[in-house]
């Protein structure tokens, strides 16, 4: 036995030596972040090596005052990279899904984790936090998977700003020893619930621990930021009561749309919450990030404060997405309120196939509406970017590069890790801004454009649409129409052009597409697409109709029967997490149980379609008491249930 162990040890040593040489042989290439894209691109994407001991599900990224990179992961660790750029240490561990970081100094930082905001400090100088001090925890949680605590910027007064996601009706909700008794009542047909104070709110916490409820009406407010002008911004995620994801300027006391959070607002304690009331009190988002075209799930917004080190987009906002996309937002203030345009910044191949290849399909969510699939193909493809998916957390480094923390966990194919975007110094040919004028929009380019092309209305295509505000899971694009560009006025320097349009209607999103427009050196506009959210016109006009209803009649679409592809998308969105991609279902210990559609005893054989339809549609009360599968009667309409049944029968039903 002793001999055997010695042999094993020797063999291990030999393997070690061989492997060390092997590892060293390529440390100087891939591992140090060799540029992976063409040299003439303005931005290159590099890998950021992470410590091998770390599960790379990045949940927060920041830098210390001295410039050390700090990274949290969803397993509850915080790692710090030393200034040499190579060595790492684990500063803290055992946190419950840390989703926000604020470094106080080199030895101390604040972190937002599920149950609280925590102050971490290394008091002994060994580089490891030994103090985990509760700063504030005066909100309710139930261990539901959809509850999260997002953060963690500070405002000018030193208050921490954070936001709480809603609980999912279908997930675990713990009743044992609650901080606050759980309240599972719905406010108005929502599928994501605020079961405990202050879920669905954006809050401030003074360093003393005092809690300041700031704004309400959020569903899953993943990205929390304080702008250089000390304004609070949130990215909210598409879903029930949220027609499309968006960037929202959050003002004190305002309500932003999802009714669940109103449960904790004393002003409405005696009110009957109706759609009419919600329409009246809802403050619109600043910039809509149209679902499908601008990804599926936006991450934390970051402001380019690099003063030019990241290229020609100083003071603009960058937002990563769950898909292979990073967006750029240009904000302007009209009558004192923010609105503006969103552009693609880094993007990959698009379309349904790309979504399925890179994002699984689950949680990219169903592209909203009947014609949703086309919106996935809305963004012109630009294949080949080495950008991964899962771009949920970003931070600018002291050197002006943009670090991207990525995580997908099991929403999709693994896209975990860290990359960074570095400006090469070459100015990209882009639409820098799209700003509102009295008669249309002014585009400001990053460089001098070909005057012949830029000054032609035919070079541009514009259309408009809006989303409906109701309890549905996302909204279709409605009231769509082309917008006529009647005139173009190019500035003398060839960098600005005004597009004069036939009609500006507040409450619509204006989509701009640019055809084959190049600069004076013949370079095409790299991202020839923008969406401008027109909440207000320059003379102060706002939308006056019903937010929950169409203005114009939508043409009836003739349908022959259930639609397989729509059924597939619905399945990927709502069903796959329990029923599995191959329909095999399964059990776990929490009471979730899904039948195997494919076996000989399949209920697809033993139940009629009518019975299955009724079961999927379900009843609210029954959902919460007797069954583990939530009812979808509020989420899917009859046709959609037929579509998904058709897909399930076609794909999984045994012969």
């Amino acid at each position, binding site marked *: 036995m002793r001999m055997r162990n010695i042999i094993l040890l020797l063999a291990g040593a030999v393997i070690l030596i061989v492997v060390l040489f092997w590892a060293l042989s390529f440390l100087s290439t891939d591992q140090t972040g060799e540029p992976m894209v063409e040299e003439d691109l303005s931005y290159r994407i590099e890998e950021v090596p992470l410590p091998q001991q770390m599960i790379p599900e990045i949940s927060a990224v920041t830098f210390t005052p001295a410039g050390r990179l700090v990274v949290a992961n969803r397993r509850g660790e915080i790692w710090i990279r030393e200034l040499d750029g190579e060595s790492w240490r684990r500063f803290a561990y055992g946190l419950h899904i840390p989703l926000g970081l604020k470094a106080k100094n080199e030895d101390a930082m604040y972190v937002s984790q599920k149950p609280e905001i925590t102050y971490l400090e290394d008091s002994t100088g060994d580089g490891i936090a030994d103090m985990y001090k509760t700063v504030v925890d005066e909100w309710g949680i139930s261990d539901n998977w959809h509850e999260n605590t997002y953060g963690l910027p500070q405002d000018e007064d030193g208050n921490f700003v954070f936001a709480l996601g809603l609980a999912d009706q279908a997930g675990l909700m713990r009743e044992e020893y*609650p901080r606050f008794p759980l309240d599972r009542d719905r406010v108005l047909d929502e599928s994501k619930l605020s079961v405990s104070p202050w879920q669905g709110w954006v809050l401030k916490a003074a360093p003393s621990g005092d809690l300041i409820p700031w704004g309400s009406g959020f569903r899953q407010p993943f990205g929390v930021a304080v702008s250089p002008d000390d304004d609070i911004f949130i990215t909210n995620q598409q879903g029930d009561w949220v027609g499309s994801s968006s960037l929202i300027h959050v003002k004190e006391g305002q309500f932003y749309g999802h009714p669940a959070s109103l449960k904790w607002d004393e002003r409405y304690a005696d009110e009957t919450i109706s759609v009419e009331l919600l329409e009246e009190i809802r403050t619109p988002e600043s910039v809509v990030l149209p679902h499908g075209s601008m990804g599926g799930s936006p991450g934390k917004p970051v402001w380019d404060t690099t003063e030019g080190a990241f290229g020609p987009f100083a003071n603009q906002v960058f937002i990563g997405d769950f898909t292979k996309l990073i967006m750029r937002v240009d904000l302007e203030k009209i009558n004192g309120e923010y609105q503006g345009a969103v552009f693609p910044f880094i993007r990959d191949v698009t379309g349904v196939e790309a979504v399925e290849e890179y994002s699984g399909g689950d949680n990219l969510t169903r592209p909203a509406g009947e014609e949703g699939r086309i919106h996935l193909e809305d963004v012109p493809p630009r294949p080949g970017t080495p950008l991964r998916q899962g771009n949920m957390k970003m931070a600018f480094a002291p050197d002006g590069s943009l670090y991207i923390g990525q995580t997908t966990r099991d929403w999709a194919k693994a896209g975990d890790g860290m990359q960074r975007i570095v400006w090469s110094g070459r100015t990209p040919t882009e639409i820098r801004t799209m700003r509102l004028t009295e008669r249309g929009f002014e585009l400001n380019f990053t460089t001098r454009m070909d005057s012949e092309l830029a000054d032609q209305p035919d070079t541009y295509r514009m259309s408009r649409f809006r989303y409906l505000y109701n309890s549905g899971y996302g909204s279709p694009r409605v009231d769509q129409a082309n917008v006529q560009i009647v005139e173009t006025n190019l500035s003398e320097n060839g960098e600005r052009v005004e597009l004069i349009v036939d009609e500006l209607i507040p409450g619509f999103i204006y989509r701009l597409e640019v055809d084959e427009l190049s600069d004076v050196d013949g370079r095409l506009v790299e991202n020839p697409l923008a969406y401008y959210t027109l909440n207000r016109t320059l003379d102060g006009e706002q939308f006056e109709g019903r937010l929950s209803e169409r203005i114009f009649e939508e043409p009836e679409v003739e349908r022959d029967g259930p639609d397989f592809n729509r059924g597939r998308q619905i399945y990927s969105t709502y069903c796959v997490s329990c029923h599995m991609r191959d329909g095999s279902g399964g059990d776990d210990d929490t009471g979730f149980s899904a039948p195997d559609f494919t076996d000989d005893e399949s209920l697809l054989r033993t139940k009629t379609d009518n019975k299955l339809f009724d079961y999927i549609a379900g009843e609210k009360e029954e959902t919460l008491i007797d069954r583990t599968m939530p009812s979808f009667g509020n989420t899917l309409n009859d046709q959609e249930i037929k579509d998904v049944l058709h897909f399930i029968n076609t794909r999984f039903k045994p012969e």
Partner: protein
Amino acid sequence: MSLFRSICNYLFVVIITTTLGYLIADSSNGKVNIDREDLNASTKKIELINGEELTDIERVYSANNSKNNYVFLSREVFNGSNFRPFFNPSYLDSVKDVQIYRTIMPDAGPSAFAIRFPDVGLALCYDSVRGGVNYVWHGDFDLSPTVAKVHDIVEIKGEPFYRETDWHPLRLMEDVEETKTDYRFRGYTVHDGILEFHYNINGSVEVRERITPIEDRGIRRDFEVQSTVESLALRIEPQEQSTVEVEGGVILDNGWAVFRGEPLQGFAVTIMRKQEKE
């Protein structure tokens, strides 16, 4: 011999983990954990020595030296797959020090603590909402069920020999008849491997509670009171499989232990597993 074998095992794990890739499973400690959605029909399967099947794996390094089975996944494959252990690699954590995870525990309030003392094989659940040690057991816990998108709760590996269920077990004397009191969790520290929870009672009484194992037989809880309070009461629930003793106070017939002083400086509670055979 067993020490030598342990050193060999440890060296092997460290060598492989730091050079080749990730330790994904140590089947000597029980089952191999696979996230439910990792299962992918298009990829290969591999059967472990303990009879379990792993999928979504292309390259595996394994070794069997009669006692321990380790399986490794290359970094390249690891990054390209959904296969995730909860923690990696636990062997690089100090195996001596207490390990503390805020997570989802059975029979506890939200975001409770899973705590293990690896060198003695003891573990406990500390509840920062209820305000005490919910249970203590010999064995370990598995955090991996908490990883999935729609997650499960931590799996306890062992049978608790001590349990508490009442709200806010430490309180002012005048509050012993209340169901709940004003308890606020304030965090914890770990100095020299000693875990110390901080909380306050009624907004003014600051308490520090150190929890240390007594070999593998039980735990000792040292309470240090930071405020000038003269007396405190601690709920002592009846236990079948353990004994509870107090230092610095007395256990009354009504199920409360009383601690007095002017001011009260501190006291201790020792929880010991009863011997199975007298």
